[in-house]
């Protein structure tokens, strides 16, 4: 379970270009719930995700995961509970290291790293198995450096890395935005499969309204740093792209085209 309580974050406080990114934001995500966050640029989606992951400290407010207050916990300690897939495929993986080494790093996210050999036979077999689920042939490229993979392959790898070890909370930060439509679809399918199978508590930010309509249990729309709209349960099943777009203050054709 994720709880965000009266989260406030102001950039450039006291300067002419002061920007309230999070305005006493309240949001609760039940265990096993898949929340989809939408909102126009500057609505505070990324700020919220960064605040949850710990990359950005809050000015005030609390963040709790499964009831434990993590507001002042640094990123690397929060990582024991949170896994994240970034928008940029370059960010989520260590480019100069091999596929297997990246898997190992993710594997050890929530455990203590020791001085024993990292890539042992048992782990390699496990990684092969998990990567083969993607159907991209990555299982045969365990010793390939990640920098030689395509953006789609890297993002798929990021996803497998993130869902491994069943994190308490999975953050997806527009993770298909940088991919071509076919690859985006592939990664999205893999995401939904993993989230459903593992019953992961998931918070996904997206600009793709079709994804917001098709996936997740609840749509959360942010505007000016607060929750403007929440659609869950029955209503979520009946929502359409057109209805969602209606709620945006500024509508662009791109949103409709995204459908």
């Amino acid at each position, binding site marked *: 379970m994720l709880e965000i309580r009266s989260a406030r974050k102001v950039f450039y406080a006291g300067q002419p270009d002061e920007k309230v990114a999070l305005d006493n934001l309240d949001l609760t995500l039940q265990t096993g719930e898949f929340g989809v966050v939408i909102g126009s640029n500057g609505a505070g989606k990324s700020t919220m995700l960064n605040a949850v992951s710990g990359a950005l400290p809050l000015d005030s407010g609390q963040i709790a995961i499964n009831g434990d207050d993590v507001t002042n916990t640094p990123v690397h300690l929060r*990582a024991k509970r949170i896994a994240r897939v970034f928008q940029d495929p370059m960010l*989520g*993986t260590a480019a100069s*290291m091999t596929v297997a*080494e990246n898997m190992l*790093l993710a594997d*050890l*996210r929530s455990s203590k790293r020791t001085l024993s050999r990292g890539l042992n036979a048992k782990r390699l077999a496990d990684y092969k198995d998990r990567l083969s689920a993607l159907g991209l042939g990555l299982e045969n490229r365990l010793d390939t450096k990640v920098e030689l993979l395509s953006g789609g392959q890297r993002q798929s790898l990021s996803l497998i890395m993130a869902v491994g070890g069943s994190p308490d909370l999975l953050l997806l930060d527009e993770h298909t935005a940088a991919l071509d439509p076919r690859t985006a679809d592939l990664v999205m399918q893999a995401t939904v499969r993993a989230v459903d199978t593992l019953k992961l508590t998931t918070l996904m930010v997206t600009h793709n309204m079709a994804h917001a309509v098709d996936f997740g249990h609840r749509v959360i729309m942010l505007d000016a740093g607060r929750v403007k709209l929440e659609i869950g349960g029955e209503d979520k099943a009946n929502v359409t792209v057109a209805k969602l777009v209606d709620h945006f203050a500024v509508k662009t054709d791109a949103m409709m085209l995204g459908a």
Partner: protein
Amino acid sequence: MMEFISSTFTSYVALVPVTLAQSFILAFVVMGIMIPFRTLQFPDLTSEGAYPLGGCICGVLIAAGVNPALAILAALACGFLAGCCTALIHLRFRIHTLLAGILMMTMLYSINLRIMGKSNLSIFGSDSVYNWAPFVTPGFPVSKIIVAGLIGAAVFLALNWFFKTEKGTALRAVGSNPAMAEAQGISVWVSTIVGVGLASAFSATSGALMVQSQGFADVNMGLGILINGLAALMIGEAVVGKKSVWRQLLAPFVGAIIYYQLVSLCLAAGMPPPDLKLATGLFVLAMLALPSLKRGRGAGGSPAREKFRE
């Protein structure tokens, strides 16, 4: 002409054992430069101060009658601390790594002078680790080659093992992508401090070994060591590559051996020693400029980051 070649060759060959001993000792500085530059992506200049620091500490301790191996360990520990300071200056105050290194190196100069109390100290004739070499007469280059070579081999094997452990893999991840490493639960602070500390520990060890080899310590002994080390590292990487962990770790040793043989060849051919720094600098510049020259002038301004294939 023939005469010049033959005389050059004769004096070069006579220098080979001495040069080889020197390369094995200085390979540790090259290692101390390689780890921050390549493994941690933390361009670091601390070695220029850590190397004489190790030398000064070792010199003072040996002059005081301390066991030479113990003196090396003390130098190693102090080098480690110096590296930790550089990393801390960078992490805590967000000062550029190069500037943090320059600050540390400058401060270490005074510290080194304080440690020795004078600018140089002779320990000639004192016991040294080279006297413990098996099967050979102490004092000859061969004994130095054996001792420094054995320590080097041990360091190579230890690092090759360490970088493949869970902790070692995490350390490499911090150099490869700090944001990702942090998101995977790795403390960038701890890894950077330990990594840069380790590197400076090697530089200090090198200084300590050198002092025992040459029989004196000097506060200025670090002058230019960084650029020599960089040149050696680049040669090593050009020869053995850097595509895998063990190749990257082997590069400092191979590079140090080849680089100091080249220097010795230049000296044997009659190059005035003061010109060496210019030659080394030009060489490093050429190695750094090569990729941009290959790309041609038009692409010269493009970012130096590696691109990935789509």
